[in-house]
């Protein structure tokens, strides 16, 4: 479990020891050790939810660890906020770049750190000049006076890098930097990373695109379920080995079995294209079948669901339920036709904060429960209460505000919403994200019972074990395209991960 060893006179850039972090009942990291050699490119890989970003946010001072220590170049360090980490020489560039869109590149580079004349007038000239100087030294091709909103994503990353380096950091953490880049832009970024290494900058690189790190990284640390499973020099590892370390986990009988008769073809999606994220996707789902959908973050899974459900506009494609084409332009059309979509983003697009649990359940279903004209609150509460007992929602009562429930119970309220809708085709997008193990198991059981009732289910998940435990078939998406349609019992997690993560197959 050791990477490249550092000698005594040359302490490692970073040593993290026994890092543990919990979010409520969920343990995100459990005793993680990480050692990063000075001037190296160190890749951190793992599935979604393995704890990569959490670990790095602790290093960058965003989170405080519950346990564990950090040493920077041999000296113990403790950060209360990102500024302290920057002062200690560590800066993190996030997946979602946070640049001020209407300011210029130079203004962003110096944001919060502006050179001033007479201590109150901003020195625009110095900003532009210093930015240009640093960019030249690093061989970056960028116009300091261009506004951020006019720059490409990869140029924005360059600005972020300049911003970090202007503050004299020696360690740069990059979180999924290529996730929104084109192939050429990614190549350019790799060159930049290599140049930075030549300048003596240490780089920690989070990714789950495996082919890119084999050529780029010096060392690789592999995380799984919040713990380090392997750490080795990159040149000693193959992509196959890395994938095995990433997923290598046994399926316990955590997943309840299902006795559903798989029947007629209920759902047919043909040549669906929407936005830039969904390209010519076609699939079918039988009645009683649970079809999983795997893919990396940004592969277009949620976008596919949104296009089917009518949240996003389709550019082309058609949807058939029981061989009848249905026209969908809004979610309302979908619901009338018997489609339900459980959102992946509970807070933003699911819950009605401040309103009661009962209202949260019945909102899309006033028609279905015979209250299309006049609402009968007593009857409505009874319906909600019966549902809560059926699926085990723990709440003080249907009148309780939704905000007073735990994440798992909020999720069950949203599921209750779609159970009440009596849909034929249900799309569950990351239904178990951020909820505890017990609630997860109950949600699997619910999926099973829906399938047993003859519904068609599309189950989107970033956790391969649960896809393998629940789905009859698995669809794999990569960069907006469907690249695999595999029977669960004829494939392996390694094969799915390979399809999802490796270009060109």
């Amino acid at each position, binding site marked *: 479990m050791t990477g490249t060893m550092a000698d005594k006179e040359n302490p490692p850039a970073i040593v993290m020891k026994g890092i543990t972090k919990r979010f409520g009942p969920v343990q995100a990291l459990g005793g993680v050790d990480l050692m990063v050699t000075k001037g190296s490119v160190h890749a951190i890989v793992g599935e979604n939810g393995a704890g990569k970003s959490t670990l790095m946010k602790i290093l960058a001072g965003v989170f405080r660890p519950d346990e564990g220590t950090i040493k920077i170049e041999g000296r113990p360090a403790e950060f209360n906020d990102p500024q302290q980490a920057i002062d200690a020489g560590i800066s993190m560039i996030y997946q979602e770049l946070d640049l001020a869109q209407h300011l210029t590149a130079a203004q962003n580079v110096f944001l919060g750190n502006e050179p001033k004349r007479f201590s109150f007038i901003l020195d625009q000239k110095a900003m532009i000049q210093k930015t240009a100087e640093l960019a030249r030294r690093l061989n970056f091709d960028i116009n300091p006076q261009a506004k951020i909103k006019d720059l490409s994503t990869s140029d924005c990353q360059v600005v972020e890098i300049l911003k970090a380096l202007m503050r004299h950091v020696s360690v740069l953490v990059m979180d999924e930097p290529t996730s929104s880049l084109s192939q050429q832009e990614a190549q350019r970024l790799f060159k930049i990373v290599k140049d930075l290494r030549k300048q003596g900058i240490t780089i920690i690189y989070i990714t789950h695109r495996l082919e890119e790190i084999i050529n780029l990284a010096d060392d690789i640390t592999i995380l799984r379920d919040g713990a380090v499973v392997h750490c080795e020099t990159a040149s000693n590892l193959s992509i196959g080995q890395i994938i095995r370390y990433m997923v290598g986990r046994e399926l316990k009988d955590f997943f309840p079995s299902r006795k559903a008769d798989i029947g007629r073809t209920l759902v047919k999606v043909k040549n669906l294209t929407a936005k830039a994220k969904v390209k010519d996707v076609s699939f079918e789902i039988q009645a009683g079948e649970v079809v999983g959908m795997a893919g990396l973050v940004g592969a277009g899974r949620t976008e596919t669901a949104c296009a089917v459900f009518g*949240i996003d506009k389709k550019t082309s494609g058609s949807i058939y339920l029981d061989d009848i084409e249905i026209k969908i332009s*809004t979610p309302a059309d979908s619901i009338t036709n018997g489609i339900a*979509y459980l959102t992946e983003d509970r807070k*933003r*697009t699911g819950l*009605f904060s401040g*309103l009661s649990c009962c209202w949260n359940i019945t*909102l*899309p279903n006033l028609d279905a429960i015979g209250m299309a004209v006049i609402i009968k609150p007593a009857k409505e509460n009874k319906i909600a209460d019966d549902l809560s007992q059926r699926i085990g929602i723990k709440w003080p009562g249907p009148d309780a505000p939704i905000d*007073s429930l735990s994440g798992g119970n909020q999720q069950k309220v949203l599921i209750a919403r779609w159970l009440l809708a009596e849909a034929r085709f249900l799309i569950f997008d990351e239904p178990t994200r951020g909820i505890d193990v017990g609630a997860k198991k109950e949600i699997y059981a619910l999926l099973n019972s829906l399938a047993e009732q003859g519904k068609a289910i599309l189950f989107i998940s970033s956790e391969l074990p649960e896809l393998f435990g629940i789905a009859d078939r698995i669809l794999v998406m990569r960069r907006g395209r469907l690249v695999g349609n595999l029977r669960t019992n004829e494939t392996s997690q390694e094969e799915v991960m390979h399809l999802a993560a490796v270009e060109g197959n």
Partner: protein
Amino acid sequence: MGKLIRQLLPFGSLMLIVCILAILRPDTFFSIDNLLNVLRRSSVYGIIAIGMTFVIISGGIDLSVGSMAAICGMFAAALMEAIGGANPQGFALWAGTGAGILAGILCGLANGILITKFRLQPFIVTLGTMSFFRGIALVMRDGQPINIPDYKYLGEGIIATIPVSILIFAAVIIMTMFILKYTPLGRYTYAIGSNREAAFHAGVRVEKNLIWIYTIIGLLTGIASMIQVSRTVSAQPTAGLGLELDVIAAVVIGGASLSGGQGTIIGTIIGTLLISFLRNGCTLLGISTNAQLIVIGIIIVVAVAVDQLAQAKTRQTA
């Protein structure tokens, strides 16, 4: 606990003001005339404030109601004159009343369509129409009012000892409370204000419902405007100047949140009465209308500040 405080607070303050006035000016304050006068004023403001309650619960705002009231009055009076001459009677008055209310509906509809179809912010749209409607009301008769000497029924009429305007107010309260609590439109109003994106995901036809909501406030403003015209037996192109602020204040004092998803008709009624009694009390105590603005300003900020504190407490205990 906190929740109870929040609900009782506006009502408690209302009672407090009534008690203070009763003690300081027992004769004038408790005269039937004075109380009816306060209620008549409240009916005009209250009916519009009820419309504003829908708008604010949905997360929006309507700044154009004052100008809308003026346009409704001018349209109605102009039609009455066109049909019935200098001193219109009977049918001309009813036809004009209908036209005034219709003008309100159309103004509200226009706001609703601009807000939804062009995806503009309610604040901006109604800021624009506030000016536009006022301009039309002024241009119609070159800034002059239209007198309708015998248009008295809505303002002064009495059925079974109760003034007609107060009966209309009561009817509006009952109907809107029903809509807000027992119909999908009311439910969707809360849902859109709480989380518009989630409402769309849950199949709510957000645009259609918002158009309804802005049309309702237009309708109610039309009704209120006709009561106002009848009270003064004339339509003033400058009627309702600054009315929108009193109305928004009433809704907010009543516990609605400008960020949407919260508010009740009862709260708004209490807020309206509070402002009306406050103005009345200031007059009775000899405080000038200019100084009244200072008092009202303080009350609004204190009411909202206390509400925020109570809300924070609710969250802690939850």
